[in-house]
């Protein structure tokens, strides 16, 4: 088999100078002919294995990256849905009615475990981040790998005392449930980018309709992408 020396070096994940030196020193079962490397594929792979290296011939499938691409805010919000006039007058009752709206969690057991972990997280420290917004979420991923990341937006019927950091009552909940901690941080960073913005908060206070809300989120998503 013949390959250009650059390609050959890439197959071994080495620098060209290392490969050239090894060929010169006779440490590698390949030889140079002009700018080409001549070698036997089978003995090359055998040699690489014996020397704790990998030889991936060009054209063979590059290793699939295990982590799939993470969605942006809008996709997660669309999956979670937006709900208005969510009932409740305390942290627990509000969370209970919010969980009942989350369509991804179908069985009763799933909903119960989500509810319990949300309440447990709130008892640790309130997720009310101030200015009338709370982001309830489980402390650790629930372990439902099949359930995608969702953000369920709940506009409350009446403001609830949520024990928030600024002591103000909360009227919007973003229930954030993710399959992994990394995903959680990824979405949380995007969500907090929106919530830092005064305009966005004012927009939320007006309880916008679903289409308007998604449009606004999309706008912030692209703003976040361009700043990154």
């Amino acid at each position, binding site marked *: 088999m013949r390959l250009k020396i650059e390609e050959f070096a890439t197959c071994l994940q080495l620098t060209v100078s290392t490969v050239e030196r090894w060929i010169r*020193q006779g440490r590698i079962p390949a030889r140079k002919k002009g700018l080409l490397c001549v070698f036997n594929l089978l003995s090359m792979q055998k040699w690489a294995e014996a020397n704790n290296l990998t030889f991936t011939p060009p054209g063979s499938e590059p290793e699939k990256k295990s982590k799939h691409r993470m969605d942006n805010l809008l996709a997660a919000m669309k999956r979670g849905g937006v709900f208005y006039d969510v009932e409740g007058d305390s942290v627990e009752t509000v969370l209970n009615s919010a969980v009942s709206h989350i369509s991804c969690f179908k069985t009763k057991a799933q909903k119960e475990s989500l509810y319990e972990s949300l309440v447990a997280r709130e008892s640790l420290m309130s997720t009310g981040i101030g200015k009338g917004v709370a982001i309830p979420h489980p402390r650790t991923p629930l372990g439902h790998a099949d359930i995608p990341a969702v953000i369920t937006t709940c506009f409350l019927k009446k403001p609830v005392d949520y024990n928030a950091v600024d002591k103000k009552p909360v009227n919007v909940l973003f229930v954030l449930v993710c399959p992994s901690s990394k995903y959680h941080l990824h979405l949380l960073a995007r969500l907090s980018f929106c919530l830092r913005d005064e305009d966005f908060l004012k927009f939320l206070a007006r309880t916008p309709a679903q289409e308007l809300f998604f449009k606004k989120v999309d706008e912030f998503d692209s703003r976040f992408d361009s700043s990154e």
Partner: protein
Amino acid sequence: MRKKFGFNIWRYPSRWIFFRFDDRLLLISIGALVGSCSGLAAMALNRGLIGMFEFLHHYRQFWWAFVIPGIGAALSSLFLEKIIKEGAGHGVPEVVYSVSRYGGLMRMRSSFSRLISSCLTIGSGGSAGPEAPVVMSGAAIGSNIAQFFSLNDRQRVALVGCGAAGALSAIFNAPITGLVFAIEVIIGEWSALNIVPIAVASVFGAQVSRLLAGNQIAFTHLQFHVRPIDTLACLGLAVFTAAVSILLTRTLRVSGGMSHQIKIPVWLRAMTGGCIVGVIGFFLPDVLGEGYHSVQLMVEGAFSKGLMIVSLLVFAKIVATSFTLGWGGSGGIFAPCLVIGSFTGLMYHRFIEVVLPGVSWVNEGGFALLGMAGLISGILQAPLTGIFLIIEITGGYEVILPLILVSAISTTLCHAFEPASFYFKDLVEKGHYLRPRTDEKVLADLSVGELVEKDCMIVSKDMKLGDFVKIMQKSHRNFFPVEDEHSGEFLGLIHLDDVREYIFDPLLYETVFLEQIMNPDIETVDLDDDLAEVLDRMDANHLFSMPVIANKRFVGMISKATLLDKYRSELIVQTDH
């Protein structure tokens, strides 16, 4: 290209289908060729020396004979200096240096230069041996044959070893010594891949010598009857030989250093040294030349001189050797070692006869033989070479037990006082002594260019802190090289730690420029720097990574983490066979 390839296929034996499967067969065949050629070279020097000796024999009786070694040394030095343009010396360190650094690459002219120069030096009476010169010639022959056949470094090193082995086994008619010397001293790595071709080359070298000069043992002797008391006495002899070895090593160094302080042309220096040897030889003719005649007499037990003369001879030979080799003559240390060793053995024998008069010792020839082994092992710090050489050149297998003891103890004692052997002392001091499978070798083979990581994000000195924070979010590295936007010159480095206290203060974002944050006084590395030195500097300054700069521009970073990664794969590749 194809046409050329078709015509020259015989010059690329590694591409023949017969050899392509495994290069062992190739190495064995070429090794046999190399062994024969270097055997021929050794025999040529041998004949040359005999010719020179016969030619000059008639002049030795004149009063001015003491200048003959001087003229010989001067001619040899002029030849090396002006015609060949090589330094003086015996050649073995040069071979080891080329094996360590350049994969055994040697010049064509080295294959005959030492033959001629040492023939002039030794033939005229200089106190030196022909072995190291033939080893260098043989090694150069091996290297050039390897180059002719376009072989790679590893194969070339094996063939250099083949050349050395063939030459040594031819000149002593001692095939095992050739093999052991090439492995123990020249290559320094015991692996089947080297041993097999070198053994074959040894056989061919010795065979050539036997065809041309007959199969004879260099120093024949009487039968020795070694008893336990003799073996016990050898412990004392080992101490003697070790002391003499250390004395010889140090005298050689002192005399070499002394000669370099005298500011005269090299040929005049060599001539002075040669004349001094001539004067010593005038009174004690046994110190002249390679001295094998005296060795023969001593091994036979026919050397009649008493304790005082023999002790004087030990020192006279040491001084003569130092003035020959240290002052610019050309030749090896092997033969003088054998002569001094046998003098030492004899001296020890005479000495214990005086101290313990009632005991009947083995014949004095036996002690001469053991003394040679002790000195060779001590000077070369290569015990196996010492043992096999003496066994083979004397055929004295019956002294093997004390022989091993003397060799082992002498080597150990010498090593305690002189950690690097006579051959390698200079190489070790210059950092050129790189044995296979050692840390030094791996570091010497890796270059800075192979370790550079180029994924750093370069920033300009006029960038504001606010813009820098955005760049930081995207970078995977902790280091940010700062460049001059216009000239592209490297100005300094910013580490994440340097900005940590400022990045959380948005007020500074628009007011602080990177020029104010960066570290301008940074230890930098050049692309040609020696990796061992770079590591030393990292350790000395407690750094984990350093920027690599070429032509004032930033090339990349070199870090200990990547170094470990590459070092390990290099080590695995180098030790795999």
